[in-house]
């Protein structure tokens, strides 16, 4: 008997695991953005003293995890599981970071939704009594993502207005059974939604319906309304995707315009030439672990619904003309 399940897709975490510490590292461009003061470390350059962009991304992820664990004052030996993912083939940033960190590791892939997926699963492990301290993290890097998914960096091509800028950085959080705020109270795992978009330069349009599906499911399962939350935060729909999501939700009878924001629109200033906004695993991760977490500690926000969105495409699927399957996972983080 699933006693902790609400409705179709939502889990109620009765023991309300807490986020006892977070850490964020971002690249120089992110460090010039409006959220700069919320990040723990801003890199002077995105290669970070390494020989390749991939090695740099792994180092960023690893150091974010170490920083979060250090801030939590939980000894390394008491960190029971490490849940992480990134955008690269075979999630090498996460698994190679795990190789050095030495924690038991679960590699997750939900594209840019991975931070919500890992927080959700990590919180379930703690809530279910399987662990007391779990560290979750995700990373992305502009240069590794560009070369895997798009064109070589120095190639002189034009980006369309709907293109988004992959965030360089990593966010990590320690989820614990300690009774303190903020806590993870509910998790809604999303379905894979494909509304027929196939333009790999327009992720917002592809992902918006997945975000909408999960948000509606969360409200129906929990009986909550948009007003319950201080802020509903989607992952990286960026400017066009955000507008589309708002309108689709309105059509379904939910008006969230008052308290809705998108991490992809918060990371950069409009004059930073990122077109539609930010994206990448690190987008939702650094905004949540940086800005949101720190403002929740100050009680500026007390009830947050993080809906991280991911586009589950690969370069092979795009070349074979497939449309883009998308997903969104929602995590409610609350000060009780």
């Amino acid at each position, binding site marked *: 008997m699933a006693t902790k399940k609400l409705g179709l897709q939502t889990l109620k975490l009765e023991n309300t695991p807490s986020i006892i510490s977070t850490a964020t590292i971002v690249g120089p461009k992110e460090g010039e953005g409006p959220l700069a003061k919320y990040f723990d470390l801003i890199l002077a350059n995105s290669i970070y003293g390494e*020989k*390749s962009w991939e090695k740099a991304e792994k180092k960023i992820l690893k150091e974010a995890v170490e920083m979060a664990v250090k801030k939590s004052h939980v000894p390394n030996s008491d960190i029971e599981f490490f849940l992480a993912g990134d955008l690269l083939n075979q999630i090498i940033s996460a698994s190679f970071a795990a190789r050095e960190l030495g924690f038991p590791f679960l590699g997750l892939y939900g594209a840019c939704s991975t931070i919500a997926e890992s927080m959700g699963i990590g919180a379930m492990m703690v809530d279910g009594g399987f662990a007391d301290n779990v560290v979750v993290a995700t990373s992305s890097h502009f240069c590794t993502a560009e*070369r895997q998914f798009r*064109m*070589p*960096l*120095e*190639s*002189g*091509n*034009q*980006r*369309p*207005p*709907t293109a988004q800028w992959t965030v360089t950085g990593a966010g990590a959080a320690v989820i614990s059974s300690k009774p303190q705020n903020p806590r993870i109270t509910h998790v809604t795992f999303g379905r894979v939604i*494909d*509304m*027929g*978009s*196939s333009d790999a330069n*327009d992720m917002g*349009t592809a992902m918006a*319906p997945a975000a909408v599906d999960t948000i509606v499911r969360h409200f129906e399962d929990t009986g909550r309304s948009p007003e319950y939350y201080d802020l509903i935060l989607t992952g990286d729909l960026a400017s*066009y995707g955000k*507008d*589309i999501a708002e*309108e689709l939700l309105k059509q379904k009878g939910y008006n969230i315009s008052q308290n809705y924001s998108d991490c992809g629109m918060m990371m950069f200033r409009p004059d930073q030439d990122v077109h539609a906004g930010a994206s990448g695993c690190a987008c939702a991760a650094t905004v949540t672990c940086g800005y949101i977490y720190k403002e929740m500690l100050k009680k500026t926000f007390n009830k947050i619904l993080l809906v991280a969105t991911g586009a589950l495409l690969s370069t092979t699927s795009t070349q074979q*003309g*497939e*449309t883009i399957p998308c997903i969104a996972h929602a995590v409610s983080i609350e000060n009780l």
Partner: protein
Amino acid sequence: MPKLTKEQQEYQKFVKKKLPSPPILKNCIMAFFVGGFICVIGQLVLNFFISRGLSLKEAGAHTSVVMVFLGAFLTGLGVYDRIGKIAGAGSIVPITGFANSIVSPAMEFKREGYVFGLAAKMFVVAGPVLVYGTVVSALVGLIYYIFKL
């Protein structure tokens, strides 16, 4: 392309109204001027070689070499992608753009080694141009040959 369901088609129609169209006029104007500017440089180089006593055909080949070098050099300096961002087709179509399309993946994949990285990935962007360019020129040559008979 996979066939879209009715629901997907409706969504795509709904979205189309929301999405911005790229600034086509501005892009065309920038492409015209930057592309034209690159051609002016090419013409100056050509004129220089002719003035030094080369025939038009020889000077043309020399000019290509110089322009390819310039494109590769600016790519290496990290300038060409910035030009390309503004100029679009204006800097992709000239031969300097062809140089960029070979040098940029070569730089990008050098870290995977000189054989399987640099050399193997060098033609990922330019490869199709080379393949179909060669095929089409052979076909055109064949047609020309037949009609000349």
